[in-house]
């Protein structure tokens, strides 16, 4: 059974012009999102995962950034061809986004109720009292206690977890078909993190919203996503269902990310648990060679990796990886 994708990104390239010429922060990125699916995008800082989100929203800061190539099809229409005012109707309505820092993502001078209802009134024909009613409903749906009292509170009166719930309520207030969550729990406590994911999952099921979850944390991916895209230096290096990626990853970078997740079990013989790391740092995007950008940090590297960019190969059903060593014995 082949489902039509809700969102499809083809060959997306984003370039930033710097003093030393233009730098490609996203390079030939392809991805698709099926209806009702939770897609995880994982990678280190600077790998282009947030830029992917901003490109889909068409919020890449221009200049210096520019979407230089590619297509972003939402229900078959290319959003890159839309006018700015058509795009404004899509943002917050068809595609919504929640951000990393709930502490600073709400306007400090307005009450949360007015901010949520503002968004409802922006995209839907609702009068003040209808919008207020809808706001209370939405706040209720994201698990904010006593929403009829909370709507008159200012952001600084709420905790980080509560503010992130408000952000989610605002993002979902117009029933978007796609919700992009850019590291929604990075700034929150672990306990709150679990609650937020529980909430996102519940909402995803109830409202049939597709979610793109952007994170650097493999454990979050394992917990939440259906399918995963692993990115490195502006490229997709591996893609597959979450169980294939976790149990059977093919790309050394993915394996490295999985090994980095700390384990709570302690070996009684050892004083301290060894933490795993991927040696080296993320490369400077302005100085990439012709080969695989992960090669300098890779423990399986061969000469060919430095000379030629590995193509994407299918390694299983819905499972793709870009590595010359795919299939070689580990």
């Amino acid at each position: 059974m082949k489902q039509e994708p809700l969102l499809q990104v083809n060959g997306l390239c984003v370039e930033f012009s710097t003093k030393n010429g233009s730098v490609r922060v996203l390079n030939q990125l392809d991805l698709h999102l099926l209806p009702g699916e939770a897609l995880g995008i994982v990678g280190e800082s600077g790998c282009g995962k947030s830029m992917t989100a901003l490109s889909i929203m068409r919020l890449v800061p221009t200049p210096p950034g520019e979407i230089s190539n590619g297509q972003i099809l939402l229900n078959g229409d290319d959003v890159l061809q839309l006018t700015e005012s058509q795009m404004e109707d899509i943002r917050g309505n068809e595609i919504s986004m929640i951000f990393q820092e709930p502490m600073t993502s709400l306007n400090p001078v307005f009450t949360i109720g007015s901010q949520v209802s503002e968004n409802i009134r922006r995209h839907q024909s609702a009068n003040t009292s209808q919008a207020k009613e809808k706001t209370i409903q939405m706040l209720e749906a994201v698990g904010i206690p006593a929403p009829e009292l909370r709507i008159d509170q200012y952001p600084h009166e709420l905790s980080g977890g509560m503010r992130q719930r408000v952000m989610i309520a605002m993002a979902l207030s117009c029933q978007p078909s796609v919700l992009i969550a850019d590291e929604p729990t990075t700034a929150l406590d672990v306990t709150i993190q679990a609650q937020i994911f529980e909430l996102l999952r519940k909402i995803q099921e109830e409202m049939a919203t597709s979610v793109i979850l952007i994170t650097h944390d493999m454990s979050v991916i394992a917990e939440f996503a259906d399918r995963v895209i692993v990115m490195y230096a502006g490229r997709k290096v591996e893609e597959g269902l979450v169980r294939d990626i976790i149990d059977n990853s093919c790309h050394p970078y993915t394996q490295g990310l999985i090994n980095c997740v700390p384990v709570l079990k302690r070996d009684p013989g050892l004083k301290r648990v060894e933490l795993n790391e991927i040696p080296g740092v993320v490369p400077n995007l302005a100085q990439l060679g012709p080969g695989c950008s992960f090669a300098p940090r890779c423990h399986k590297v061969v000469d060919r990796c430095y000379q030629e960019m590995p193509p994407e190969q299918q390694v299983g059903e819905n499972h793709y990886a870009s590595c010359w060593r795919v299939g070689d014995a580990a």
Partner: protein
Amino acid sequence: MNNRQELNPMVRPDRPVVELWLMFFANKAAVLGLVLWLLVVFTAVFGLTIYTGDPFEMVGAPMTPPGAEFLLGTDYLGRDVLTGIIHGASITLAIGFSATICTVIIGVVIGVLAGYYGRWVDNLLMRVTEFFQVLPPMLFVMVLISLFTPSIYLIVLAIAVVSWTGMARLTRAEFLKIKELEYVTAERAMGARNASIMAKVILPNALPPLIVAVALNVGTAILFEAALSFLGLGDPNAYSWGYMIGSSREYIWDSWWTITFPGFAIFLTVLGVSLIGDGLNDALNPKLREL
């Protein structure tokens, strides 16, 4: 997993506006400024109904010293100084306020556009601003006024034309800072349009320093008008405090009261507005808040 707890009666911090006023009223100097201003406004609004009379009318002997007949004396034409001060209050306030309103409109519009759109818009508008900034303001006002017939409207406009640059730079600086903040991006991600981001998201957050600047601007505008009238460039039909000082300046050795009382009125009014401005500055600055 919606384990709802009964919400305790919420212990809520004061609303921002309430907090601002509490801070303001805790500041003795600011309260003094406010009292001075209320006095001036009261005089301007109700003074004429209580103390009637035409300030241009000669009511007594010229240069009568202050005393029982004329509380503050008369000037070289026999005009009552007290009547003049009461009349002057409304003219002075009207000019101070309207010049400030014009200043704010010009300055904020230019600052918002430059700060928000950046790039060539910013470049262009800032070069224009700099052009106005390098002109000596007093001289520029005098040129503007001598080109046309002096009237209150012209004076108001001329004061605004030389004072908007500071307001524009301040607004631009605030916009440059705030437009990079996350809630602006978040708002844009919710589909807000440029106009709505400027007016509803950034401007309200840029207000605190602007409010202070506006308060101080009222004082500057009043001083400007006084200086112009003193030089004889004011509206001859507007009996402002500056006009009183200007018209009597040749008799300063013979009748000190004709200059001292209007001068004192200007001093107290400008002092009041400065104290209010400082008080607002302290109250609006979160770093000075007592915890």
